[in-house]
Every structure is written in C-alpha cells, then in structure tokens.
C-alpha cells in the first residue's frame, strides 16, 4: 500500500514533467505577450476581440499591476512582455524607463493630461475620484461639493478611505500640486482628527459603507459598477461627484505602454491602437463603467460627462515624481502605510 502510494506520486510527477516539456514550445508567429494588471473579468473579452480582428495571437499574464511592474523590473532586458496594460498610471510610471515612445498619432487621441509627457505610456480609460456614500443614511444634498469640507467635525467617525491604494495616493499628490504642501498637510491632519476608518482598498471601503461601518468613503467611481453587478442595483451605496477643479475630483487612468525590449513592436502598436479605437473605448464605457478618453466617445450612461468633473489642472505624468514625498507626508501625519 505504502509503496503503491509512493509509486502513484512518482507517476503523477512524471506525467507533470512531460506536460511541462510539452508546454515549452510555441510557434513564433505573430504572438504578443501582454502583462495585464487589469483583471481578466474586466478586459478578457476586449483582448479576445482584438485577437479575432487582428489575427495576432495574444497571450496574457494577469496579475496585480504593482507586482507586474516589479516583475518587469526584475526581468530587465529579458522580459518576455511586449505590452504592459496597467490598472493605474503609477505602475506605468514605475517602469517608464523600460517603455518605448509611442507614435504621435496614437498619443494625440488622448488629452495631454492623461498620458506620459514623454509619450511612453498613454491612458486608455478614466476613473474619477468620488465620495461614495450610504443611500440609507444620507441624501445627496447632505454632501459638500469639495473634499476640503469633510474636515467638519460633523463627519467625525463617519469617513473611510484606503491609504495603501495608488489612486488615493495620486489624489493626495494632486492636492499638493494644486493647493500646496502646507494646506494639504493641514487637510490630512484635520481629516485624521475626524477618526477615519483606514481600509485596504476601494472595494473594502465601499463594503464598509454598505454594512454601516462608515457613511462616506473616498474612492474611484467605477467600483460601484462592479459591486452593483454582484449585489444588484439595490446596493445601498452611490457616488457623489465633487465640483470641477476640486482635487477630490481628480481623474485617474488605466493605461498601456510597449516595452523597449519587445520584438513585436508593430503588433503591440496595433493593440494600443485598438484600445484607443472607438470600439475599444466604447467597451470601457459599456462593460467596465469607466470614462472613454478619446474624444467623441460618450461617457457611460448615468455619469456626468468627463469635461464636467475634471480635477485640478495637472498632468498625471507629474504625479509619479511626487509619490515618494506624498508617502512620507502620509506617514508623518499618521495615515501612513
């Protein structure tokens, strides 16, 4: 019996080894390797569509954006990736040295504030910073239209946000660029006095609102779209958009870049072009509830138009340089990670 079992293990092991060898060889035809920090449930269909339309075979490694950025860093010049499709601009900024400049005609499709000033990555869809709130305990008219007003003591114990989240950190950096370090620090300190609940990520924040732990949360707008798909339209949370120009109304992007080391730059450009085509942009509006960034494609139904909620007048490409000092400031205020 014992020997039988050991033998069984060995057989399975040998079978696996064979399978491993088998999966090693692959045809070198038009095959594109994409590292996607965006989940397969969100973009899998879109990439399949590109595959069908272009005849380019797309192999996708799905994982967390930050971990993929770290992976690209460790792989260095040997990275098998051709394209990095990231959940946020920060992860693209982290590997920008490894990215090649994109053609002007692709970059020009997107407003300059939503791409790298040096043209190494471009935003593919936008997500607005919003204040999500409980529809059971608050009316929209109860909410101020600037993020600065949440320092009022009446919000004590009712606020939550996720300091480790890249979009939250980008928002703080944007506030610093907009109103200066001193005022940002004071805002953070005043918010801290309101005893905020610190969460890990956006979804945790929305759920904390739904289950009554907090009343308002500082998050990105499109998580609500996903949560409604899971829980139904009676999910007791909705989004409040802040006034135009407010740092709390910053628009972040998910974006894409092509690796310098790619041997399939042509096919990679085809993919970027597809993501920025009307078809690709409509997909984001309809399937993921995000803002299209290419002019002429309408915003998702039920959301205010992109032009009405743009945050402070700054380029997302400028936020990366601020990240380290923003993290330090959050740390000093006691909202650190």
């Amino acid at each position: 019996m014992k020997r039988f079992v050991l033998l069984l293990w060995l057989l399975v092991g040998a079978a696996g080894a064979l399978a491993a060898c088998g999966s090693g060889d692959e045809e070198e035809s038009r095959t594109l390797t994409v590292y996607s920090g965006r989940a397969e449930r969100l973009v899998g269909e879109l990439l399949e569509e590109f595959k069908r339309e272009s005849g380019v075979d797309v192999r996708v490694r799905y994982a967390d954006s930050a971990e993929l950025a770290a992976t690209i860093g460790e792989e260095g010049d040997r990275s098998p990736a051709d394209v990095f499709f990231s959940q946020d601009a920060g992860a693209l900024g982290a590997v920008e040295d490894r990215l090649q400049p994109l053609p002007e005609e692709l970059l020009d499709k997107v407003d300059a504030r939503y791409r790298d000033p040096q043209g190494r990555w471009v935003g593919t869809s936008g997500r607005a910073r919003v204040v999500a709130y409980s529809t059971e305990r608050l009316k929209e008219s109860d909410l101020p239209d600037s993020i600065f007003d949440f320092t009022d003591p009446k919000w004590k114990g009712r606020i939550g946000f996720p300091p480790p989240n890249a979009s939250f950190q980008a928002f703080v950096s944007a506030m610093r660029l907009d109103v200066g370090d001193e005022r940002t620090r004071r805002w953070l300190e005043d918010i801290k006095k309101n005893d905020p609940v610190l969460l890990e990520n956006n979804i945790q924040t929305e759920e904390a609102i739904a289950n009554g732990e907090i009343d308002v949360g500082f998050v990105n707008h499109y998580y609500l779209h996903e949560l409604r798909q899971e829980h139904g339209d009676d999910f007791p949370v909705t989004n409040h958009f802040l006034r135009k120009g407010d740092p709390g109304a910053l628009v972040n992007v998910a974006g894409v870049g092509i690796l310098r080391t790619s041997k399939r730059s042509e096919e990679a450009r085809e993919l970027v072009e597809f993501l920025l085509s009307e078809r690709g942009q409509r997909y984001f509006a309809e399937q993921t509830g995000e803002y299209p960034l290419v002019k002429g494609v309408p915003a998702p139904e039920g959301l205010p138009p992109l032009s009405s909620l743009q945050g402070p007048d700054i380029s997302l490409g400028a936020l990366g340089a601020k990240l380290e000092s923003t993290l330090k400031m959050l740390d000093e205020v006691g909202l650190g990670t």
Partner: protein
Amino acid sequence: MSALRRAPLAAAAVAVVALACLPLAYLLVRALGAGGDAWDIVLRPRTLTLVANTLGLVAVVTGAATVIGAGLAWLTVRTDLPGRRVFAVLAALPLVVPSYVIALAFIAAVGPGGAAQELGLGLGGRWVFGFDGAALALSLATYPYVYLLTSAALRRLDPALEEAARSLGRSRLAAFREVTLPVLAPSIGAGAILVALYTLSDFGVVSLMRFDALTRAVYRQYQAAFDRDPAAVLGLVLVALTVLVLLVESRLQARGRLRRPGGERPVAPVALGAWRWPAAGLATAVVALSLVLPVGVLVWWVQRGRSRLPALDDVAVSAANSLLVAALAATAAVLAALPVALLAARRPSRWSRLLQRGAYVSNALPGVVIALALVFFSSRLLTPLYQTLAVLVSAYVVRFLPQALSGAQAALARLDPQLEQASRGLGAGPWRTLARVTVPLVAPGLLAGATLVFLSTMKELPATLLLRPIGFETLATDVWNATAVSSYAAAAVPALLLIVLSAPVVWFLQVRSEVRGGPVAAQVPGEPPPVP
C-alpha cells in the same frame, strides 16, 4: 557509514538548501541597493511597531494553535470522546480551507453588518478587525498542522512507557508530563514551527482584518512605491524573525529526544467521565468555526451573488491544473526534503543542523518575495525555463520545503538507527539500505509531509500568479480573478471546488493512519539508542 554514501547525500542536501536560500540572496542584492537607507528603514519607529505587532500575533497564534491542535489530537487518539473517529477526520479538514476564506467568513458572520448583527445577536461589530480577528482566524486556519503531526505521533507512541511510569507510582498527570510529553515534543514542536512561520508569512488574513503586520508593510511597499529596495529590507527583517523563531524552537527541543518505535497494540482509552460531552462540544465548536462556517459562507455567496458564474469546463481545466502542480510540488518537495532530513538525523553536527535550519529561512517570506526572487534568478540564469512549470514548482518547493521536512524529520527521529546498522551489518550497501529499510520505514512521515505540501500548493496564489506559464489557470488564480472585481459568487465556485478536491487527501491521510498504527517492521524491542 562509508564515504561513498556521505558525499552524494551531503551534496544533495547542500543543493536543496541553496535553492531554499535563493530568496535570501535576492533580498540581500536588493537591500544593498537601498544602501545607507536600509538602516533608516529598519530603525524607523514604524518598523519597530510592525515587528512588535508581528511577534505578538505569532506568539498568540502559535500558542492557541498548539493548544487546540495538541488538545484535539489527544482527545481523538487517546480518550473515549464521543464520535472520536469522525472528529479525527473533521479536525484535520480545515487544512483545506484557505486562511483568507476563514477570515472572510468571520467578517461575513460577525463583522459590522454581518449575519450576527442582522439576526440581532450581540456578537457582531468592529471587534473582528485588528489583532483579535486576525489571531482568531489564523489560529483556526493553522491548528491542523499541530493536530496532524501530534496525532500521528500519539498513535505511534508506545503505551508501555506511560504504563511503566504509572506502575512506578506516577500520577496520570505526572506520567503525561514526564513521559508522554517529551516523546511528543518533536512533533508538537514541528507543528508549532509551521504555525509560527505561516503566521509570519501570511498576508491575506492580516490584510482582510486590517492588522498592521510586517507582511502587509512589505506588500504595501511594492504596491505604493514600486520600490523594491525598502520592501527587501523589510523582507530581511522577516528573515531575522524567522531565525528568532527557529532559535526558540531549538532551545525548546534541546531537552532531549527519544527514539523509540511505536507499539501497535491497542491502548485502553482514557475515560473522560463527566467531561465527555463538554469535550465533544469544544471539538464541535472548533470544527464549526474553522470548517462549517467558511463553507457555509461560500455556499451563501453562490446563492446570493449575481455575478456571472464561471463556465464549467474552464473550472474543470483549472482544477486539473491545480491537482497537477500540487502533485508535482508534493513529489519534488519530499525528494528535496529527504537528503536534508537524513543528513541532520544520521550525521548530527553543528553543520548539518545549520543546513537543516537553512531550509526554513525563506518560509516566513510572503509569497510575492519568493516569486520575485525566482523571477530575478530564473529570467537571468535559466531563461529557457522561465515561466514554465519547472520554475513554478521550484517556487513551491522553496515556499513549502519545511512542511515536507517536518514530516521526514519526525519520522526519522523515531526510526531506530540500529535497523539501518543491522541492514548494513548483514551486507546491504548504503543505497540498498536507504531504499529497502529507511525509506519504507519513514514513508508514512514522508507522505504526511507530501500531503501538507499538496494542500498548501492547492491554495498558493502569489507565486502562482507571477511564475505560471501564461494562460495556465488554477483554482486559486480563478478565485483571485473573481475577487479582484468583487464577484464573490464567481469566486466561491472555484473556492468550494478547491476545498472539495483537497478534502479526500486529508481524509485519506487521517483514515490511513487511523487503520495503520505505524510502521510494523520498526517494532523491534530493545533499548533506546544513546543520543549522539
């Protein structure tokens, strides 16, 4: 023993430990990149808070899991606990439930707005977040390590020892403390160390429970700053804590071991008397919290959620892939553990013990660090193998080697070397002795280790995400893919399948050892050999 046998054995052991230390080498490379900042990061008050938090969590979880695990082992093996055969299997089963699922279940049940509050029970609320919730979830997720290793040792324990102590006038308690406990100590210790290392490396539970532990800080460094150097420095702090845990363990273990093959004869169970039903109640509570509750929450998600459920054939492919890599990892880990354990058991020296400890060094590191270390080395040195199953399986071996080792070590500790010496004395060569005497006698221990690795691999996520061949989905990556967009119903299907597929492995392990007390051939009477 001839030099012929020593050289390949030592070489194999060194190679295995070198592999296990790759993440350490990687962290050193990266931490050197941080230069003078490294000390700043280590000495920041924040880092010290994280270390204190982490040590507190490790101490409480290890203590609780040891008490629960060893207690249940004793109840199911040595007493007349009602339904003890059923409990013997049920108590091991939480091993198949990923710890973050246990944490999610607690939040859904007693968190704010959870089921308890909805039903008007007073239990629900924020208390579940922070230290208490993290410690509770981790204790329930990890006690099976102690339970499995201790119950296996209890079954093989020769009752004659305890009976002799009793007949010499020791009370039952004194006999237990002075005779039984020292014999069980290596197994309990091996289980406790797995618990401690699991707690050090866990990210899922502490992140869900919002408890500031070191792993959470390592992840946040990657996530927020994209800067690998500070993350590496914090990783080295984790390695330092691992060394601390290992030192504590070896201090506790130094009190002497007893090599003694087990007795097969049935032992009269300890009568619990009036405590029978309260004990059964406690055992039921543990199983309910760590097994029934999580499974119940998953089933509830499937029914309540509206997200699109995954296609059946996709899940089937993922399930087959999970089973494949888990079987490969279990086989590879046992083959890797054997030379290290053999060397440490048969040629005890400062050097071989150090080698054995080296195998544990990476175990407290979060999976993402191990994954990035393998990305770093394999993309540079083994380019053709990069992102194939070979590298993925190596990552599993690095992560779970201590689990395979714990089984092999415990088995070898009980194996009387006189049997090997007899085999050699009768003219069998070293390889023949290894194949015909040693391996068959320690096979149950090896299998137990293989099972632990198998189950851990089924649940593993971070290394799988980064190192799998592109397009290779497992049940764990399916769960991740769905939870990344909060599709809980879709996540619950692969999670349930993961549990259902892993359960028979545990059942097999437990039932098998229930039937077969221990290696029959090892029951050679005689004096315990002197401890070298």
